């Protein structure tokens, strides 16, 4: 707690504010991209036009079904006097009509999720001493897929064939149907996905990986929130850095469009949100993925060196003046 407090203080004085960034970025059947900036939901059309489609909703996640109906939530805090939370789930129909899927309710969303497979089954994590990954069918039947003493479990993602991917501390796991009745098999795909960052950057968090998504080839992509990069974990467990964001923006999540381009959801130091397209040529490795465009670390190191030289020259000048003064006095 103390560590968190001090880190938070340092964080505030550095004029930055990154709370709990959203990961909601989805595409519809036509290839339009939708993303959340935690206040509104935006649509980027195929022609590149950006428009607001849902206003004043604080949603971290989004889901779009096969009929292009867009789902999200609105979460709010009722103030310190009540110290309660409330939520509702909304749906933007493909006709453009905005309806409430779940009416305003106290507390957080439960037994409901925006992580769904092509059959409409929902998946979520219940984190406690013993953590569980749960499934709810379209008919409303809730089952437990796996339970155990896990470390910190990050966001989930689900492929069309009901394979779930999630991170637990520095490990990446896959939970997939084993073909026998309703049972699932869990396997660890990678066990060292952390990156080296300072405790000040981590700010008391016990995770580095954030948004998680997959491509058609079965590779898994992880947004590493501290090291500001995206890593790709192949089916063989090989980890590769494929993209880095500049120091002012942090990649939080991503998705592939119908043309194989990757769209990343990025948060800025001042809590702005943007969706950026990374061309498939860039991802294919034919040319180097965009690197840091600004390097404050490098600039500040150079300025520090210059400062030392100036201070040293200043001190030398003072000493020389004193020397001359003394000599002049002696003469």
């Amino acid at each position, binding site marked *: 707690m*103390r*560590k968190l407090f*001090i880190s938070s203080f*340092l*964080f505030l*004085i*550095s004029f*930055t504010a990154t709370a709990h960034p959203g990961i909601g970025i989805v595409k519809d059947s036509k290839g339009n991209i939708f993303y959340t900036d935690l206040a509104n939901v935006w649509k980027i059309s195929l022609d590149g036009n950006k428009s607001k489609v849902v206003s004043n909703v604080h949603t971290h996640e989004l889901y779009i079904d096969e009929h292009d109906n867009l789902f999200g939530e609105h979460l709010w805090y009722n103030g310190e006097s009540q110290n309660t939370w409330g939520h509702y789930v909304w749906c933007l129909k493909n006709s453009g009509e905005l309806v409430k899927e779940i009416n305003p309710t106290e507390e957080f969303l439960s037994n409901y999720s925006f992580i769904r497979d092509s059959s409409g089954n929902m998946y979520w994590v219940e984190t406690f001493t013993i953590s569980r990954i749960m499934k709810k069918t379209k008919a409303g039947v809730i089952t437990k897929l796996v339970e155990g003493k896990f470390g910190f479990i990050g966001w989930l993602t689900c492929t069309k064939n009901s394979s779930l991917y999630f991170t637990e501390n520095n490990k990446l796991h896959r939970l997939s149907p084993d073909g026998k009745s309703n049972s699932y098999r869990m396997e660890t795909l990678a066990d060292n996905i952390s*990156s*080296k*960052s*300072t*405790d*000040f*950057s981590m*700010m008391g968090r016990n995770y580095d990986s954030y948004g998680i998504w997959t491509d058609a080839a079965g590779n898994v992509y992880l947004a590493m929130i*501290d*090291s*500001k*990069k995206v890593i790709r974990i192949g089916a063989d467990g090989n980890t590769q850095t494929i993209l880095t964001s500049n*120091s002012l923006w942090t990649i939080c999540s991503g998705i592939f469009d119908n043309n194989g381009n990757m769209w990343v959801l990025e948060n800025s*130091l001042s809590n702005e949100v943007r969706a950026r397209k990374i061309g498939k040529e860039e991802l294919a490795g034919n040319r180097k993925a965009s690197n840091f465009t600004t390097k*404050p*670390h490098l600039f*500040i*190191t150079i300025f*520090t*060196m210059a*400062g*030392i030289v100036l*201070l*040293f020259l*200043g*001190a030398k000048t*003072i*000493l020389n003046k*004193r*020397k001359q003064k*003394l*000599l002049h006095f*002696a003469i």
Partner: protein
Amino acid sequence: MLYILTFLLSWLSGMLVILITAFFSYDQFSMIDIVSFAMMTFAGFFILFLLIYLIVLKVINNKIAVSKQFIYFPVIFSLVANLPVYFLIWKNTGDLYGISEATLFTLGFLTSGIVFGSFWAWKNKIQKQTNRV
């Protein structure tokens, strides 16, 4: 004036070592890290400078021969005068920061001590030469 310059020179030298070491230690050394290290080392070194360095300097300045100051001053300031800081760094490791951050803090203060000691030894040498003339 010279005291202020020495203070800034020593602190900046410590920061430079932290910044350079961080290039090899971390994947990403963000503005948050730089501000955190800068503020904590500045505040720590400021207190150390006022409470210990100036007193130690006053005590040892005339007791150690100028010819030996280039060895003794950096050693005394970087090891002996910095002892309270090293203790605090060690005590708070794992609580306020991790081992790698503690190592950087230690390297920073070690460098500041060496630079401070060397600077005053150099200054005394120049003064001695002037006095001789």
